């Protein structure tokens, strides 16, 4: 539980951080809240020679809501996501999900940027951002670019972010008026999901007018299930539609066995989480 040795850097601006990342190369990692990276370093599963701490970078933390659009700085902690009243108004799904991440101690340190950039399929925010159709701003030596959350994740710890890029901001549209739910089964507080479902939906005249469905920890990356959403849209969210959505979602996920249970159990729970999330979202729509 002792990390290898490393040099510590504490840049003051994003540009400076990006320069450091670029110049130090492969052996460098940025550290945000440290609550994914440092455990990995203690297990020596990660052994960066340089740690570039983003805590001192100005302007990377904060939440801005205006005209229904939400922008969140990468260094915003999960605790801040829970506490922010404007965010709770514009996108209550984020608060609901953040409350189910880890425990209060971890949430004081862990950041949204770290959670998203990490690339661990167990993280909750990536699935959530698929559901919200968020866009990520990446700052690299060549400047900034945007990548859609739904196009960001390739596999475990494999993302669209280049090694010399820093995730600076997350943007998405608020979902005021939509029904929402984040349903997560876990073994205990502080555990990653056995299975989790993020659902947004709009109802019109008793029928589902729009839906978005994403699943967490059921593949090597977060799963945005367009097919599940399609199965819901147009339906009164009756049993047949739910069955169809679950079946469609099952086609998109690919869970693996671990200490949480075997594949068939995870598939079953994924279905239960989706059903419950749809029911709760519908009750709020």
């Amino acid at each position, binding site marked *: *539980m*002792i990390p*290898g*040795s490393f040099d510590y850097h504490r840049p003051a601006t994003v540009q400076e951080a990006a320069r450091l990342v670029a110049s130090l190369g492969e052996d460098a990692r940025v550290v945000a809240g440290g609550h994914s990276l440092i455990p990995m370093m203690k297990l*020596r599963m990660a052994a960066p020679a340089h740690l570039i701490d983003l805590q001192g970078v100005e302007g990377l933390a904060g939440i801005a809501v205006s005209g229904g659009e939400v922008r969140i700085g990468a260094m915003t902690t999960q605790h801040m996501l829970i506490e922010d009243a404007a965010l709770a108004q514009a996108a209550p799904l984020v608060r609901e999900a953040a409350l189910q991440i880890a*425990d209060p101690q971890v949430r004081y340190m862990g950041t949204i940027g770290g959670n998203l950039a990490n690339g661990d399929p167990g993280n909750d925010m990536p699935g959530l951002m698929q559901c919200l159709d968020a866009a990520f701003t990446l700052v690299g030596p060549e400047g900034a670019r945007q990548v859609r959350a739904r196009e960001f994740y390739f596999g475990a710890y494999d993302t669209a972010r280049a090694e010399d890029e820093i995730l600076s901001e997350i943007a998405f549209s608020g979902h005021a008026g939509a029904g929402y739910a984040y349903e997560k*089964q876990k*073994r*205990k*507080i*502080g*555990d*990653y999901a*056995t299975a989790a479902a993020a659902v947004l939906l709009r109802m019109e005249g008793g029928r589902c007018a729009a839906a978005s469905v994403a699943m967490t920890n059921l593949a090597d990356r977060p799963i945005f299930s367009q097919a599940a959403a399609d199965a819901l849209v147009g339906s009164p969210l009756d049993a047949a539609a739910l069955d169809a959505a679950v079946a469609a979602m099952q086609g998109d996920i690919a869970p693996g066995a671990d*200490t*949480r*249970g*075997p594949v068939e*159990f995870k598939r*079953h*729970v994924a279905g*239960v989480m989706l059903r419950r999330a749809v029911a709760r979202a519908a009750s709020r729509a």
Partner: protein
Amino acid sequence: MNEMIPPAGDRAAALKGLGSSRKRVEDVRFTQGKGAYVDDIKLKDMVFGDFVRSPYAHARVVSVNKEAALAVPGVIAVLTAEDLAPLGLHWMPTLAGDRQMVLADGKVLYQGQEVAFVVAENRYACADAIELVEVDYEALPVVTDPFKALEPDAPVLREDLAGKTEGAHGPRRHHNHIFLWEQGDRAATEAVIDGADVVAEERIHYHRTHPCPLETCGCVASMDKITGKLTLWGTFQAPHAVRTVASLISGIAEHNIRVISPDIGGGFGNKVGVYPGYVCSIVASIVTGRPVKWVEDRMDNLMTTAFARDYWMDGRIAATKDGRITGLWCHVTADHGGFDACADPTKFPAGFFNICTGSYDIPVAYVGVDGVYTNKAPGGVAYRCSFRVTEAAYFIERMVDILAIKLGMDPVELRLKNFIRKDQFPYHSALGWEYDSGDYHTAMEQALAAVDYKGLRAEQAERLEAFKRGESRSLMGVGVAFFTEIVGAGPVKNCDILGLGMFDSCEIRIHPTGSAIARLGTISQGQGHATTFAQILASEIGIPADDITVEEGDTDTAPYGLGTYGSRSTPVAGAATAMAGRKIRAKAQMIAAYLLEVHDDDVEFDVDRFQIKGAPERFKTMKEIAFAAYNQAIPGLEPGLEAVSYYDPPNMTYPFGAYICVMDVDVDTGVCDVRRVYALDDCGTRINPMIIEGQVHGGLTEALAIAMGQEIAYDEDGNVTTGTLMDFFIPTAVETPHYETDHTVTPSPHHPIGAKGVGESPNVGGVPMFSNAVMDAFKPFGLTHAHMPHDHWRVWRIANGLGLHG
């Protein structure tokens, strides 16, 4: 004059003696982060040691290359078995009469086994160097299943025992067999079962788990080359035993070894045994001439230092048609891992598992336990229990529930029908124990009334109907357990560990101004000894508990004792405390009589003083007596007021309790929501009700963890899959239910103050209670038994297997 004497009740209350919910004196430092644990010890020139551990569960160690590791700046030495062999320290004896490799001697037998010990100036250099020690392994076939380990062509694990057909506990019939321990009358039991009206039969696994104390194991060894004295600070539940064993292993004279257990952050049996880390630290300190610290990390602790349980219990229980139990048969396949390192009394290789007739009057019984080697870590310690009592209680409490199903009887009714009656105590069990006291019917009836048992069953029936109508997806389970423990090991005539008798001790010194210090052979790891032992003494000698210091854990100052585990502190050292107190009181009586100028027999003890019989206004307080003891020449008496008592208990004590819980089981997710827990404990005389309640809360929480998810699991290759707290279940406050505690009081007839011990009861009774509740929920669908732990997926699997997922 008379009015000036405060009433006896007020004076007794001021003592904060027996029965007082006195606040824990330890908490002042613990709640402020001021405890002093092993890892807080910092000595001049201290260096650090840590292990290179085997990634394989079974492999030959072909070679170890230290070169690259030795080149790391700050690295002082890398020790291997080859370095220890000339000292004869590459192997060490275990407490169970086996031997264990200190460092891999040619092969490794489990993942995480110690292969080399790196000593460096600091932890960081140590950790860097560990990565650079090149070990060449040749993988061997792995056996993690004890049944497969006993197959004729199973791989030979312990090559060092080749040809040894006799082990520490009798004949070995196979190369991976350790012992067969048999109790009771096999032929008679089998005859009863063969002719019985009803027989219930089941294989019950109490899975492998781990005590996982908050503080891991560790030590600091410091060999002073000038005085020749070795000081060893460590997380030891039995410091004196460690000193004696260290002396026997190392050849250092016992007076030249000082063992100190500082504050200990929980033990639960994990800190009873002797570990390679201790031996290597001592050797390293001798070699380097510098103090050496070794402290496990969490993964080391979970993977390598003593596990608990792993008993496969095949049971048969026979009864008449109307539910009178007539016989009990049990065979255990006990998975001990790579070495037999259980910490049981020597004559009991399966501990007190033969308490498995439980609280019932069972005329005839048989138990056979086969100990088996596998490619898993050694241990098999008493995790918050007295030597396999948890296994025994789980076995009988499951078997009784299963028998109830077979008989179509309510499980409580079956228990009430078979309890040992109050008038049968002292009761001789079919497996050889003499239960000292009990009143099971009263306790059970009190529990049933408290939870409204009938009401719960009615509610359960309603909910079942709702489930069947498709209105709900959750099932209600009611879990009942009634346990009897056997604690307080123990009488020296049959209880010893490696020949060390299991008495315990207390030494008291009263200071001239009437305060006192008491030293004991035990060591608190969170039990609150400094609080409760002072209370015992306060009531015995009339000095306020607040004026009594209790000190434990330093072998240079404390009297010899066998330490704290198996709920033995109160039954044994607590008794020694009372007996030493009585010696003090006897001398005080003589002093008081002298001071009051009357005959010894004319004074009587009254709370905090001796008074003249019939003239209570003429008295001497204990404070006055203490001063006189030191400062007044009393003819025929030596000065001073001190006493020591070594207490060899005449029998064990037998705490018992009735536990009931209510659980809602979500059949779709496997999530079990414990909505009510009621625990009635009878631990005899209650010393500090608040501490009892705390112990019960803690033990129930551990029981919940064990029953519902906590395990040390291995994959087929012998890799530990639950080696971190992400996967090894420790409940947080969120998962911990609310507890209702209750009690009856049936004092032990042979203990000086009637106390029986309570720290472990809730773990013993809690596990069957929680497990029985899960089984009870599924009973209407035909379930009789399913193995623990009842984590989400396994509960889901039960529901799935019963066709509840449509």
